[in-house]
């Protein structure tokens, strides 16, 4: 059984509040920016709490980001295709040292009575430097990741406002990340999470 994996929330420490919050003004600045942009909405007094709910947007597992990048590699796609032909066989693929650069734009739609009045779009840039990763594949699927050394750096921005920033530093990943019983990427595949305030 694999250990709980690391998410972007953890990388950027977005859920830390109170005394553990390394950047207590990040949501304050976001709140001020949004209040000035959407003046027709009288935000509730507990706006900081609402803002923190935005951090749920970054509950993205790092292996899922890795998989999105790996599947663009031709040799891995070829190997997975061959593995699909021999579903009984298990293969272990040792990956070369590589770097993954990722940029994606999660967003939050603010709706009043089902009418979108505001779209809050964040820009997340990430760079991973991976060494010693091994993939276990079977029946055309990646069943398991044996992690190696990982260094990551990145930034979360709202327009020109930086919400969170991560300097390049190693992070600890679980040794094993198991994908066998879990639809890995379907959760993040443009399916919105809804919160009502």
């Amino acid at each position, binding site marked *: 059984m694999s250990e709980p994996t690391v998410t972007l929330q953890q990388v950027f420490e977005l859920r830390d509040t109170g005394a553990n919050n390394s950047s207590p003004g990040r949501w304050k600045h976001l709140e001020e920016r949004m209040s000035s942009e959407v003046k027709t909405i*009288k935000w*509730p*007094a*507990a706006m900081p*709490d*609402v803002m923190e*709910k*935005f951090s*749920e*947007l*970054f*509950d*993205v597992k790092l292996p*899922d*980001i890795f998989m*999105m*990048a*790996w599947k*663009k*590699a031709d*040799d*891995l796609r070829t*190997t997975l295709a061959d593995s699909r032909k021999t579903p009984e*066989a*298990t*293969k*272990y*693929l*040792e*990956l*070369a*040292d*590589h*770097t*993954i*650069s*990722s*940029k*994606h*734009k*999660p*967003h*939050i*739609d*603010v*709706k*009043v009575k*089902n009418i979108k009045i505001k779209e809050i779009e964040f820009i*997340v840039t990430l760079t991973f430097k991976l060494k010693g990763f091994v993939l276990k594949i079977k029946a055309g699927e990646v069943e398991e990741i044996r992690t190696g050394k990982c260094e990551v750096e990145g930034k979360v921005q709202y327009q020109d406002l930086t919400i969170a920033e991560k300097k390049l530093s190693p992070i600890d990943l679980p040794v094993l990340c198991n994908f066998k019983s879990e639809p890995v*990427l379907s959760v*993040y*595949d*443009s*399916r*919105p*999470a*809804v*919160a*009502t*305030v």
Partner: protein
Amino acid sequence: MRVHYRSLRILTLVSALLLFLVWGAFSVSLQTRNSNQGKIRAITQTAENANQPAKPPSKGFNRPLRDKPGTTDPPPETQPTTPDPRQKKPAKPDQQPSPQKSDSPKPYPQKPDPQPGQTQQFPVSLSADKTLIQLGETVNFQLDPNPRYIFMFDFGDGTPPLAKDANAASIDHQFLVAGSHPVNARAVVPAGVAGPGPGINSVTIAVEQVHLSPVPPSVEVGVPLSLTATSVSKDPNLRYRFSFGDDRQTDWQTSNEATHSYSSAHPYQPKVEVGFAGNTPIVSLDSNSARVINVVLPPSGALVFHVEPARVTATEPVSLSAEFPAKDRHLQYRFQFGDGGHSEWQDENHLTRSYRPGIYGPVAEVGVLLDGTVYTLATSTPQTLEVIASPSNPLWPWFLVAIGVGLIILAGVVFGGYKVARLLFPPEPSFVAHMGIVAPTLQPDNGNQLVSLELELNPNLSGGHHDLFTSEPRLIHAERSQP
């Protein structure tokens, strides 16, 4: 003794024959007459040729001009008189006597039979039915008494002499040259008759041209000009035709007067022609021109244009009127409104019109109607017309106040009702989490949290951009299989 008796009888017969011859000659001499004045002409006649009174001489100084040498003249009674081509017609027996004639032709004077070898004188007078005529008129000449001789008439107008037949009662002549023409007549003396005496009296015929008088001497365009033709003739057959100098003319007419209106300013010289009815078509025998007529435009300022009032509101009609002296003209008026529109030519000199707000310069025009066409006489100077927008309704501010108060009251009612509803039914905002996200319930802040909003979180991971850089040519460094 018997022989002497027979000779006596022969001598008696011869004497009787001579007496018969003398009586016949005396009878012929009775046919010559003396004039009433009896001072002009005497005809001497001998008893020897008294039986040949009408035969003209075969030659002589007063032989008729139509005679040619070597030709035999017909007897005077049957010889036709060749009429002058301009001679109209012989005088009628019932023609009225001329003023100069005192009475009808007198019968030949009854003179006693002349004795053989005696001469006898007849006074003959020449008269005309009129002595002052219109050029082209015909004059009838008569001799009183009218001897049975051929008379040569010289009319004094340059035409060849004309012979009056011995049996003709009178002779006519048409004068085609103006001026004073002395008319003379001379008898053609038969052969064997003594030469002419002092001659018949001369009659002078004054031939006058028609005169044309325009009134007035200068006219404005469209004003009627009167033309009067004056002729000395009283002939009821006299006809007149007027030409006005602008390519227009009348037909032949009985009246000696005509009027005409000119359509443009220009000098014109009208003319009149005279002819006589009876000829088809009527031939112009005389003409004369009037002096030059100056046709001028009306003076500037003659057209007075009124715009009343000069400053109006858009809802008020504007009265446009013009004044212009008619002078017997059929005037027409047209108005240029100054806003691009204009009226048609009309008899009325005024109209009303409504304008939109703005400043305009209306203009009036006046024209004269001649033969169905209007000719412009004058155009006025533009008048300034200021049309302002209609003032607002004086009650309008009160309407605005009433509406404003009504809106305020309505807003108060709505707002009050809303507050009451909020007090009765306070909203309860809630925060509901989905997709397993932590969802604490937020409480209203002093009752001001009235908006319930919804947040949709979309990680959009698949819509991102991913780049992979390897230190080796392939991502897969090594591969091993596990059976």
